[in-house]
C-alpha cells in the first residue's frame, strides 16, 4: 500500500518540480517560491519579503 500513497513531502516535492518546469508561469515569482520551499523557509512573511525584493530590483520584469 505504501507505494500507492504519497507523503505530504512527496506531494510538495512533486508539485514544486511541476511548477519549476512550467513555462507559462512568471519565472521570477515561481522561482522565489521554489527557492524558499527548497530551503525550508516558505512562510508568508518570507514570501512577502521575497516578492517585495523582486519588485524593487531595477531590472525586474524586463525579461518577461
Amino acid at each position, binding site marked *: 500500500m505504501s507505494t500507492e500513497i504519497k507523503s505530504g513531502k512527496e*506531494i510538495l516535492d512533486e508539485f514544486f518540480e511541476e511548477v519549476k518546469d512550467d513555462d507559462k508561469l*512568471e519565472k521570477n515569482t515561481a522561482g522565489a517560491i521554489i527557492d524558499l520551499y527548497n530551503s525550508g523557509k516558505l512562510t508568508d512573511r518570507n514570501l512577502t519579503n521575497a516578492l517585495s525584493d523582486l519588485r524593487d530590483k531595477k531590472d525586474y520584469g524586463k525579461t518577461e
Partner: protein
Amino acid sequence: MVKLNSIGVKGLRGVRNDLFIGLNKRSALIYGDNGSGKSSIADVFDWFFYDRIDHLADEEIGRKGYEALRNVFLKDDETASLSMEFGNPMFDSEKTIEIKEGSLKASLSNDSIEFTEYLTKSKEENLTLRYKELVTFVLSSKTDKLRALSEIIGYSKVTETRDVLRVVYNRLSKEIKTKGFDNLINHQQSQIIEQFEQNVTTSEQFIEVVTEMVKPFNLGVEIEALKDINEVLKKIKKPDDSKIVKQEAFVLKIEESLVNLPTNLGELESQYKDYKAKFDAIVSDIEKLKKLTIDKLLTSAKELLLEESYTENTCPLCEQDKDKITLLSEIKARIIELEEIKKEQKELTDASTSLQQQIRNTISPLQSLLDDKLIGEKENENYKTNIETLVTAIKKYKEPMKVKVASESKLDDETELLVVKKPITILKSECKSQLRAIKISRKKDPKWEAYGKISTSSHAYAQIIRMRKEKASYENQRDTLEAIYRRFLKKQKEALEAFLDAFSGKIDEIYQFLNPDEKVENIKLIPIEKNNELSGITIQFDFLDNKDVTPPHKFLSESHINCLGLSFFLTSVEAFNKENKFMVLDDVISSFDASHRKRFADLLIEKYGDYQIILLTHEKTWFDIVKNLVRSKNWQIKTVKHNETKGTYMDESPQILKERIEQKIATSDESNLGNDARKYLEHQLKHIALNLEVKVTYRHNDMNEDRMAFELLTELKGTINKRKSTELQGEPIIDRLLGSLFIGNKDSHDSTTELEFSDMKAFWNDVMEFEKLFFCEACGTPVSLRYYDEGAKQISCKKRELHYIWKK
C-alpha cells in the same frame, strides 16, 4: 528497515535504577500490573523519537512533558538516560536528560549525520500507540480528523504551504487595491493634459512635445532621451526660482496624496462596519463567550474519559449513569461548539488586524506630508491644519478597537466615525488655486512658463512610468500566485483522494479481520469540502442494510470503535513507516471483549509477523493467551514489576542476564555487576530447588518470589546432607558462596558496599562453577528428581550425563 536490539532505561518515569530489555530484534510481550510502570517504556520511546510525550504535556508540566519525564526520586545532580541499540549499530545512541542551570536539558550521544537523518525520518512515523489514543481519531470532529490524518502523513505541511500561498495572494491583491495605481496614473495623465493641452502616451511623443516647446529658446540642447530633459530644465531655470519650484513640487505632492484618499476612506468605513458586525455578534450572545471558561474543564473531562483507568459508566462530575462512549462523544460535541466560538473570536482578531493595517495605509501619505519640512512654512499653515484634521479623524477609528468584548460595551456607530470630507475639498481647492497662481505668474516669462509646464509634466510622466511598472510587477506576481494556488488546490485534492481510497481499503481489511461477519462493511474515509477547500474528513460504512452511515459512535460499541482505532493505527504504520519495522502497543486491548482480544493477537501474529512488536499489557488473562500464541514465534516474554526501592524493574530471562553480566565483565563495567550476578544465582537456585524438592518456609505467592540466595543455598545444603549425596557434600563451592559478601541475607540485597571489580569477577566465577555442578553442560537441564534412577539411587539431568547419588 530498523529493528531494536536493546533498550536501557535509567531514572526515567517509573524507572529508578537500570531497566534493561534485551530484544535482539525479536518481538516482546511485556506484562505489568497497573502502576508497575510498564507505560514508562512507551513514554521513553516517545521521548527518544519525538522529543516530547504528548499525554504528559500540559500547562504545568510544559509542552514537551519534560518535567514529568525524570524519575521523581532522582537527585538534581543525577542524569536520567535511555540507551537504544538498533539492528544497525550506526544508530545506537544514548539520550540523557539532566538539570543544567536550573532547567532540564536533553542531549544525544550520537550526532552522526546518518543517525540524525534516521531520527528526523522516524519523527514522521507512527511508532507508539496507547489505549487512550485509540479512539481519538474515530471520535474526533471532521476538522480534527483531517488535522490528525494530515499530521500522520505529513499532510500538515501541505496545508501549511497552501495557507502560505493563499495568505500572500490575498495580501498582494489587497495591496494592489490600496495602492490605487489606476487613480494615480489617471491623475498624472490629467496633469500632462493640463500642461501640454494634449495627452502623451509614449516617450517619443513626450520628447517631441518638449522639443517643440523649447525650440524658440535656442538652448543648444539636443533631446534624444527623457534624461536630456533635465538638462533643458537646468538651462531655463533662474537662480532665484528654486523656492517656487520647491513649493510647486510640494503642492503637487499634496494633490497626489489626496488622489486615493476617498477610496481608502471608503475601504476604512467598510472594514470598520465588518469589524463592528463581528464584535456586536459576539457581544449579543455573551453567554456563548462565557462558555469558553469551561473549555479547560471539558478538555480535562475528555482526557479523563480516555484514560484506561476510568472504567465507570457514570459522569465523573454529576455522577449520573451514562455510557462512557456516549458521554465522551457529548463532551466532544461541546468542545466542537467551543471551537466554533473560538473561530468567531479569531475572525474578530483578523478583522481588527486588517482594520489597523487600513488605518496605517490611509494615514501614511498624509503623515508623509506632515513630515515634510515645507509644512512648517507660514504659507502652508492652512494645508497643515486641514491635513491634521484628517489624520485626527482617521485615528478615531483606533478607539473602538480598544474596547474589550468582555466589557459588553457597544461600539460607536460607523456614522459617528465618518471622516468629514470638507478638509479634502479645501485642500484640493487650495492646491489648485496655488498651482494656478504659479502658472499665471509664469506667463510673464515664456521661458519660465515653459519651465513650469515641462517640469510638472516630466514629473507626472516619470510617475506614470514608475507606477505602470510597479502595477505590472504587482499584477504579474498576483496572477502567478493565483495560478500556482489554484493548481496547488487541485494537486492537494487529488493526492488526498488517492490517499483516502488506499487508506480506507486497508482499514476495512483489518477491521474485517477483527470483526468477521458483523455486518459492518465498506469502511471509507470521505473528504468534505467547503468553499472549494478541504474542510474535514468523515468515516462512513455500511451497517446492516443501511448504506454509508456515520458517525461510528452512533452505531458501534466501544469495543468496535477501538477496533476501528486500531485498524487506523496499523494502516498508518504500514503506509508510512519506512525507516522502522517496530511498533510499541501500550495496553491497547483494555476495552476489548474476549473474542476481539483473541482476534487481535491472531492479527498481530498472522499479518504483522515481520514487524518487531513491543506489546505491553496489564491484562493477565490476555497476557496468558498471547503468551501461548507467541511462544513458538520466538517472542520474548517479560514481566515488569515495581517496588519502592527499585521503582520499575524487569525480571530478565537468565540467559539474557548471563549475557549481560559477561558483557560487563568483558568490558570491565562494574556497575551493578554484583547485584546482577546474585540475581542470576537466585534464579538458578530456585530452578535447582524446584527440581530437587528443596523445602523452604512457606510464604505467600508474591513473597515467594523474593527468596534470597542465602536462604535457598542453606536449604539446598541441608537437603544434600539429608539425601546423603556424597559427591555434592564434598564440593566446597556451596560453602564458598555461603560465605560470600554478595549474598548473606536480605539486608544485603541491592547492597551498596563498595567492592573491587576483581571481587565481583571472582564471585561470578564461583556462580559459574556452582552452575556447572547442577546443570548439564551437554543438555543444559538441571539434575532433577524427574529423572531419578531408583536402582542406582541417583538424580540426573535429562540426558543422564550428569548424575549424583541421592537417597530418598
